[in-house]
């Protein structure tokens, strides 16, 4: 490829990498991702996830078997500690919330069949104590029951066999569901394509607008030709987009797998291929459309209604996302997902929520590839003329004429 294209690409890459806009767009977004990832999780933690630790003042001498039984249960509701200090001191510490709480076990344990064991605590969440109480109650009931039966002459081994507990375990009934990991990845890729392409695209557009209005384009075009200039720009910003996506993807993966703990399913080579294809082509297509808009406008400020529509083009599929989640294979969704500017996002969103037939994906790749080629060509041609045309916006019909020429 042409050396001058790389010169322009390197310039655009390094200059914009240092720009505030790029830093803000690139860093603020992952922070938002992290916040979105963290907050619900954090709020959930507040509920009852952490086990309650209770101190036991053991006047009945049963701490060991009690603790063993509690630990042998598959539960993360309660931990026990043997109290070594006076009750008054524990009470004080519980009031000050240094410890979750304590309870006293006196002899004989069977006396508690008449009245409850009191748990002294100053915890805000009563539900955690209730949960802990349930666990302790079942363990202690067994312990006391075993003792009673033993006193009545039953063999310990027999007692165990006779009093085995009966458990209930919930089984959630739902349609055959896709795991979270299965849809997070394509959905995430779709969002990153939209955001990154829009960011890069608008930076291309603004850059072109500036170069056009301060006429540095004349200097650049007195050295290289317009194709090299725009190709270099698209390439340079592709590099920026890639850097951005890598950062976002990296942060996103860490957040998903390490913090929220959502496994990302294995990606097949075919998936890997079309994710990449959608990204590269999606970016090129959107950046070209934006470049075309920039080159054909009089200046950066001038933006007619029609232009606004084109600028918003990439985010339109997001408005369909609710519909896609509900019925990813509805006929209209399938049809709209073949409208070229929507292909990367719509297809990825569909594949997040359903199995998109391979032939549809392949067809979409062909359509997208073809359309992107046309857009790049059109942008190059309009750029050639528009960059050196001053003082007025190109009309849509002029753009169309130059793009075809």
């Amino acid at each position, binding site marked *: 490829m042409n050396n001058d294209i790389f*010169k*322009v690409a390197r310039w655009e890459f390094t200059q914009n990498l240092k720009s505030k806009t790029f830093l803000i767009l690139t860093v603020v977004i992952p922070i938002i991702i992290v916040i979105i990832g963290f907050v619900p999780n954090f709020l959930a933690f507040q509920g009852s996830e952490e086990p309650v630790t209770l101190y036991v003042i053991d006047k009945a001498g049963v701490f060991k078997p009690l603790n063993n039984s509690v630990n042998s249960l598959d539960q993360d509701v309660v931990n026990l500690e043997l109290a070594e200090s006076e009750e008054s001191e524990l009470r004080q510490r519980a009031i000050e919330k240094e410890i979750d709480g304590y309870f006293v076990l006196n002899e004989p344990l069977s006396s508690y069949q008449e009245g409850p064991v009191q748990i002294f605590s100053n915890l805000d969440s009563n539900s955690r104590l209730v949960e802990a109480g349930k666990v302790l109650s079942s363990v202690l009931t067994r312990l006391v029951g075993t003792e009673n039966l033993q006193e009545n002459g039953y063999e310990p081994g027999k007692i165990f066999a006779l009093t085995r507990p009966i458990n209930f375990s919930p089984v959630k009934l739902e349609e055959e569901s896709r795991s979270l990991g299965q849809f997070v990845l394509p959905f995430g890729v779709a969002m990153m394509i939209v955001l990154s392409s829009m960011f890069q695209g608008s930076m291309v557009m603004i850059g072109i607008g500036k170069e056009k209005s*301060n006429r540095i384009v004349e200097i*650049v075009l*007195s050295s*290289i030709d317009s194709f090299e200039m725009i190709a270099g720009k698209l390439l340079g910003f592709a590099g920026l987009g890639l850097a951005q996506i890598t950062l976002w993807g990296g942060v996103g993966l860490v957040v998903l797998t390490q913090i929220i703990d959502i496994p990302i399913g294995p990606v097949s080579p075919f998936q890997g291929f079309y994710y990449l294809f959608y990204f590269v082509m999606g970016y090129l297509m959107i950046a070209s459309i934006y470049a075309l808009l920039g080159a054909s406008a009089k200046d950066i400020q001038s933006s007619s209604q029609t232009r606004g529509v084109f600028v918003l083009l990439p985010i339109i599929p997001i408005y369909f996302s609710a519909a896609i989640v509900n019925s990813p294979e509805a006929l209209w969704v399938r049809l709209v997902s073949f409208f070229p500017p929507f292909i990367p996002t719509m297809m990825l969103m569909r594949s997040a929520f359903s199995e998109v037939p391979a032939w549809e994906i392949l067809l979409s790749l062909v359509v997208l590839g073809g359309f992107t080629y046309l857009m790049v060509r059109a942008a190059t041609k309009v750029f050639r003329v528009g960059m*050196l045309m001053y003082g007025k916006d190109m009309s849509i019909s002029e753009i169309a004429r130059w793009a075809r020429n």
Partner: protein
Amino acid sequence: MEILKVDQLEKSFRGNKVVKDLSFRVNEGEIMGLLGPNGAGKTTTIRIVMGIIGPDSGSVKFSPQVKDNDSKRKIGYLPEERGLYEDARTIEVLEYLGNLKGMARNVARMKAKEWLKKLDLGALENDKISELSKGMAQKVQFIASIIHEPELAILDEPFAGLDPVNQDLFKEIVAELRKSGTTILLSSHRMNMVEELCERVFMIHEGEEVLNGNLEKIKEEFGKELVELKFEGDGILLRESFGDRISDLEIKDGSASFYTEKGFSPNEFLKYLPDAVDVKEIKLGKPPLHDIFVAKAKGGSHE
């Protein structure tokens, strides 16, 4: 040797003809002035020469030493409108633009530093372009246009917007460039500036050629002499005595200036001096380009 050949250029914008049948040459090693008042069509002509816009008809040909295989690298171009990458650092911009002209980046950076120092901008190499004053930015842009030591430098209004000190500095540098072998096509509406620098001029008005050729010859052919007198006595007598052998007579107490008409030689003119005017000082000289232009432009529009 001709380095640039422009033939029969025509260009219209929305039905309005702004360049009318212009033909001129730029010879190797010279400073050629492209002159005319604002709106004469200079910038359009230069943009056509640079290939930025296409002509409706006519041709622009560079000699192979300036442009082969369509490469514009041996041409340096300072556009009329000033603009650089606002957010970039001065040295980076020069390095990049030099690089685009085919210089290695480190060479471009070194050259840029030399030039910045030479134009008193050495301390500002790491400043952003947006932090520079207008004049400074103009110097930077000027450097950008000649950093690669072009065979041909096309400078559109290089003196516009500069203070007198910097105008002189630019004049010196343009003269130096020429000495070091760069051919220069200089466009300006400031005729006095161009007059001091150029051997040949191509002067246009409303898109049409007014004057074309060697500056001295043009002045010679114009035929008039500029006379400046200091005297004692009644200046009105001068008008009576010379009649229509002179033109543009201006009298201020004790001094007068006028043009002798063609054929009215200094010798003859002395004979006609009225006795009642006691001449203290006489200065004879060629008329400034500006006056020739005005005369020609007026004449042209009558034809």
